[in-house]
């Protein structure tokens, strides 16, 4: 959609493709990261009865700008014994992994990177790059703590991809499409058509699906939380044990790259959960644009609803971070293999039977 509109505008394929691929980064991820870093510190502050950053700008608004400037002018330390090429490439790979996921995410009916019909599988595949980046960072910084952290991160992310995939399979079995755009289109018109409330089906089928969908939403939310290394699964950068895991040796712009990747990943993950279960960019109670007749308002409303849902889930991630303690590595694995995977298999089985009904 956007690509065609831009192509008609500029007439030059490469330019249009270039703009489309850069738009999510500059239009969405950087502003989001700006807000998210500040929001995390403010939310955590108020949850702990304190005020959080108050000095830079009114109530600490410009705090993230200050952070970025600090990180920019910080000296970019590279320890002598590190493996230079891997050390420098790792943050890029981690950011590439999480930024590429935004290509297939439909921000609104009009504003979508590329409407590939393998959307969800592409995203899961691309976020696999992050594991390679983390392992590279852990190994290259030649420090025992980061090595331990990287090992843990690799084991954790790989094993938590299985429940994510299984839940995605149940959604695909249910709706029959892999493309995120079609998934969002299926869940149109009012919130009870969202997949969390059983999707666009009728009668007994919908009623049976509701508990399963709620449970599978819970499972995919926890497992994607683990993929992003957020508490209670933030063992790779467990401050109290491993100082700060794989990005101990990084400083300056490289550290900012890791930081940005983490927040971009956070939003990507909550966007996936929003699309799969909460109707992507569909508004819960109809569009103002349709009732008022302004057709250009609908994509804007869709964009608004999409970011609202995404931000809500990001808030829940922050909320969890400041409430829960941290898992131990073997408990983390046990939780994934003994609880999430069996549950998601059972759900996949039952949903398969229901769709046959």
């Amino acid at each position, binding site marked *: 959609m956007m690509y065609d509109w831009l192509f008609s505008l500029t007439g030059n394929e490469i330019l249009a493709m270039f703009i489309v691929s850069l738009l999510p980064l500059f239009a969405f991820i950087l502003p989001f990261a700006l807000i998210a870093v500040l929001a995390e510190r403010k939310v955590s502050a108020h949850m*702990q*009865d*304190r005020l959080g950053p108050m000095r830079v700008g009114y109530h600490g608004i410009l705090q993230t700008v200050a952070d970025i400037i600090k990180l920019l002018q910080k000296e970019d330390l590279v320890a002598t014994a590190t493996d230079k090429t891997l050390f420098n490439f790792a943050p890029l790979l981690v950011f590439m992994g999480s930024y590429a996921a935004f290509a297939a995410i439909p921000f609104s009916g009009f504003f979508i990177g590329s409407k590939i019909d393998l959307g969800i599988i592409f995203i899961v595949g691309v976020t696999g790059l992050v594991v390679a980046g983390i392992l590279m960072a852990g190994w290259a910084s030649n420090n*025992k703590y980061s090595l331990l952290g990287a090992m843990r991160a690799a084991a954790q992310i790989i094993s938590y991809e299985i429940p994510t995939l299984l839940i995605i399979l149940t959604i695909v079995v249910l709706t029959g499409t892999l493309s995120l755009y079609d998934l969002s289109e299926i869940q149109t018109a009012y919130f009870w058509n969202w997949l969390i409330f059983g999707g666009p089906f009728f009668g007994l089928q919908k009623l049976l699906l509701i508990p399963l969908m709620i449970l599978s939403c819970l499972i995919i939310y926890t497992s994607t939380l683990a993929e992003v290394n957020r508490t209670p699964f933030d063992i790779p950068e467990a401050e*109290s*044990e491993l100082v700060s895991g794989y990005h101990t040796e990084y400083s300056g712009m490289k550290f900012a790259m890791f930081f940005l990747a983490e927040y971009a990943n956070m939003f990507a993950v909550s966007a996936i959960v929003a699309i799969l279960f909460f109707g992507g960019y569909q508004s819960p109670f109809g569009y103002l644009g349709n009732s008022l007749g302004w057709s250009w308002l609908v994509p804007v409303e869709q964009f608004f609803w999409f970011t609202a849902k995404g931000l809500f889930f990001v808030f829940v991630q922050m909320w969890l971070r400041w*409430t*829960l303690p*941290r898992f*131990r590595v073997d408990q983390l694995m046990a939780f994934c293999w003994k609880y999430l995977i069996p549950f998601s298999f059972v759900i996949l089985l039952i949903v398969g039977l229901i769709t046959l009904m």
Partner: protein
Amino acid sequence: MALKTEEMVLNMGPQHPSTHGVLRLELQLDGEIIIDVVPHIGYLHRCFEKHCEAMTYPQVIPYTDRMDYLASMYNEFGYAVAMERLLKIEVPERVEYIRVIMGELQRIASHLVALGTYGADIGAFTPFLFCFRDRERILHLFEITCGARLLYNYIWIGGLSHDLHPDFIRLTKEFIKDFRPNLKELNDLLSFNQIFIERTANVGVLPLETAINYGVSGPNLRGSGFKWDLRKDDPYSVYNKFDYDIPIGTGEKGKVGDCWDRYFVRVKEMEESLKIVEQAIDTIPDGDVTSAIPKRIKPPEGQIYTRVENPRGELGYFIISDGSLNPARVKVRAPSFVTMQVFSELCKGWMVADVVAILGSVDIVLGEIDR
């Protein structure tokens, strides 16, 4: 042919976020499993005992504060009780009551630090700040009474440096009224959280025989299910005038004597201390607090060993006087010093993350270990 695995020696070095001070743990690791822990101490050694030999008796008190800097009121209390027994001084009733109130408030403050940092070690950062917010109220109480927040020099030999501040009683009552719901909230947030239980139950179990053999004391010993509290078993001051009971580890969430038991014993102990403070506040007699302070302290030649129930365990003072103005020898039996010996036995076979959990549950302070 068995796979040859090479042991990795990891230094949880003196500067590490969760070693509660400057302690170096040399871990021999096989992957993540710990084969052996060798603690190295001495980084915070300030020759307390050598100082004491050059100081007069009242001048030693500011030094006792700096030993266990999280419970310095109780260090002074121990030293004062030891000296009063050596000099056979009778202290007025009001002084004893104020000392009990201050000691128990200090126990709550010290436990709050222990529980808060323990939550932060396991990963939950919010309870840490809740605990420190409540502890701030207690430090304010100390500040209005004797002027200092952490190192008080308040309990002197034979009395106190200041009397209670006029609105101390009112502020303490307010604190107690506000603190109870906060304690319940802390329980909801941390103690009964399934992940916290998962991380602490059945971890680092301290069997009772090794505990007694090593001489472990305080919440760590009571966590292993042994009802032993010096306030009742070797009574000093006016503790026998109040009724409170001694919480012990019951193995509620796992085996008796695991990290969770030691943690929960401290939570229940805080409730008991609240009870003591309440009773002491209501029945505090009047009187002058500085009447029994001797002008020049020259004890007869002799030696005495006295012990008090410090928030971290049994704090013993062994004082030898040779009749002069300065003590000949002051040896302090620090509870954390003894607990640190058991630590390497507690950690065998657990994982790196558990070393942090066990170290947090054992609640040591390096100022006391290194003296």
